[in-house]
């Protein structure tokens, strides 16, 4: 009997450990994807490329139709490998000295680091006929000011979403989240730069202030928000909004897309204080084994009709201006920016370690205060 028990205990301990590993939350970038609207046939061209495109990005970034269409047209096989966090990607790229992969899609801030480390090849723009389709709003940003290395593929835009049937508060700005009428009724993503940034915006500051006193002040402001916070998490926040667990949510764009597709009555708000956004961009590593395949792929998905398919599948904001009008009506309100959109837009950038540390401290205090 004793053996039995020890065996049972060992087994359960081990399982517990594995569960712990599995629980770590997924990346901030691509957390989910939406079902695809199936694509139309693509005219085949005679020029065929050789070999394989080694594509490295999050899981589920492209509908299979698009990948198959690319192979059928260009002859390059697509070998798709995925990472869960940007950090994993950078670590692997470092280990490969900028080789192994032909095309990588990752978040803005990590690309800044990768470029600084010399792991990214400068783009030969003559090979990208469709480059003009990119929405200029998403170009020239901090991680690649001259657009020399990257082409954007999808943007996350920080919107507020709320269910008007669950609250009487009309939300038009971040400041409205502080309203007492929303007590214990808000969900926010587990991302301290985004949420602390929200408080900074309410105080009229930039996301990227490095002055620790200002960050501290934002933290104090955030403590006043604590009674309204019902939950903080990264995965499937939309479920809590849809089930009525919360009335309002600050969540990632792909989650907004899923929520709005399930419940069209939800309201998407571009906060009056200004809109934060992040960009996923494609780049070719410095030692890419098959850079030609990468160019062919970038150019292929820059075509408006292909981009439309991709973004409707991906559920992130469309970075291809030429595709904006092609996007189906039901997706328009959360995949493209409204006409005449002129809010202040600002990206979250890498900041000094001291500022990071203050952010983290303020964030930990905030989380504990929400209990």
């Amino acid at each position, binding site marked *: *009997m004793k053996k039995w028990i*020890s065996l049972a*205990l060992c087994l359960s301990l081990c399982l517990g450990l594995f569960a712990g590993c599995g629980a770590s*939350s997924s990346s901030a970038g691509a957390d989910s994807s939406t079902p695809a609207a199936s694509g139309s046939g693509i005219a085949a061209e005679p020029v065929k490329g050789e070999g394989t495109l080694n594509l490295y990005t999050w899981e589920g970034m492209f509908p299979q139709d698009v990948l198959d269409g690319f192979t059928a047209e260009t002859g390059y096989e697509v070998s798709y490998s995925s990472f869960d966090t940007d950090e994993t990607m950078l670590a692997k790229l470092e280990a490969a000295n900028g080789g192994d992969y032909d095309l990588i899609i990752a978040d803005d801030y990590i690309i800044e680091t990768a470029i600084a480390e010399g792991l990214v090849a400068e783009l030969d723009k003559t090979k990208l006929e469709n480059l003009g389709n990119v929405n200029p709003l998403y170009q020239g940003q901090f991680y690649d000011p001259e657009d020399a290395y990257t082409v954007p593929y999808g943007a996350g835009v920080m919107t507020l979403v709320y269910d008007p049937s669950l609250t009487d508060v009309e939300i038009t700005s971040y400041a409205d989240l502080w309203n007492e009428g929303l007590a214990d009724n808000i969900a926010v993503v587990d991302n301290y730069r985004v949420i602390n940034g929200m408080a900074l915006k309410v105080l009229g500051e930039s996301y990227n202030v490095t002055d620790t006193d200002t960050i501290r002040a934002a933290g104090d402001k955030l403590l006043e928000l604590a009674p309204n916070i019902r939950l903080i998490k990264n995965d499937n926040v939309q479920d809590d909004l849809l*089930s009525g667990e919360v009335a309002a949510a600050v969540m990632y764009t792909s989650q907004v897309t899923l929520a709005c597709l399930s419940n069209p009555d939800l309201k998407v708000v571009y906060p009056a204080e200004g809109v934060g956004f992040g960009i996923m961009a494609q780049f070719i590593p410095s030692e890419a084994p098959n850079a030609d395949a990468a160019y062919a792929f970038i150019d292929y998905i820059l075509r408006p009709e292909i981009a439309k398919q991709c973004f409707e599948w991906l559920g992130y904001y469309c970075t291809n201006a030429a595709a904006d009008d092609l996007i189906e009506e039901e997706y328009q309100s959360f995949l493209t920016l409204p006409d005449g959109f002129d809010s202040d837009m600002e990206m979250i950038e890498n900041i000094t370690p001291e500022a990071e*540390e203050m952010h983290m401290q303020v964030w*930990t205090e905030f989380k504990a205060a929400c209990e």
Partner: protein
Amino acid sequence: MKQRKSLWLLLAPMYVFTLLFVAGPLIYMFVLSFETRAETWGVIHEFTLDNYKNIFQPVYLQTFAESFRLALTSTALIVLIGYPFGYFMAKLSEAWKKRLMLLLMIPFWTNSLIRLYGWIIIFRANGTLDKILMGLGLTDAPLKLLYTYPAVVVGMVYALLQFMILAVFSSCEKMDWSLVDAARDLGASPAKAFLTVTLKLTMPGLLSGVILTFIPSMGLFFIADILGGNKVVLVGSLIQDQLMKAHNQPFAAALAVVLMLLTTAMIALYKRVTHSDELEGVL
């Protein structure tokens, strides 16, 4: 002589494995905790004590206190539920013991994360529990049960209860029940016989159960994240945040080192107080 040599050869893979996968990471973490974080990414090999100093900020000390509080609450509840369970299980017939053991093990065939999601379905607004309560007319609106402290405690107790049950059970099972009869014959009341004989003799089992539940509950932050909506900040979640989000590897390492030292100290204290050199089944 020859036999000793072959014994060594047999054991060598074990030593190599232990050095590589246990001692190696520990040393790495220890060294890392004294290094400086780089501007944006990685670490610089520069000695500093700042990471340890940083822990003494009230907000971080608070997470240690919070972890202790949760671990203590859960362990206390687990003792209250698990001890009687193990005790009465040991008194069953052999056949029923086996059946009950099987029932205890079956949940482990499913990933614990998935079982936790089960609790979400029970607790969430308009979820199973809400429907039952409203159906019975006990409540008239959905209760906010999910993402609360009690929900986290329920999750902890659920995840760790069987360790206590099995430890107490094995202890009770080995016990010589005629000693209890003797106590009763000599005039002890059932309560007194339990306290002076049964409890004392099963103490090693109870204590190993406490260690088996207390120590993991210091680290099971994913339960607090999932059922508590990330609002209960434990050392485990702080380490994860520092490592995965703030990219402050040295500080995360320092937190981990301190957490390990604390748990080691607790086990040592335990041994001291209880004078038990052998904790049943564990050490």
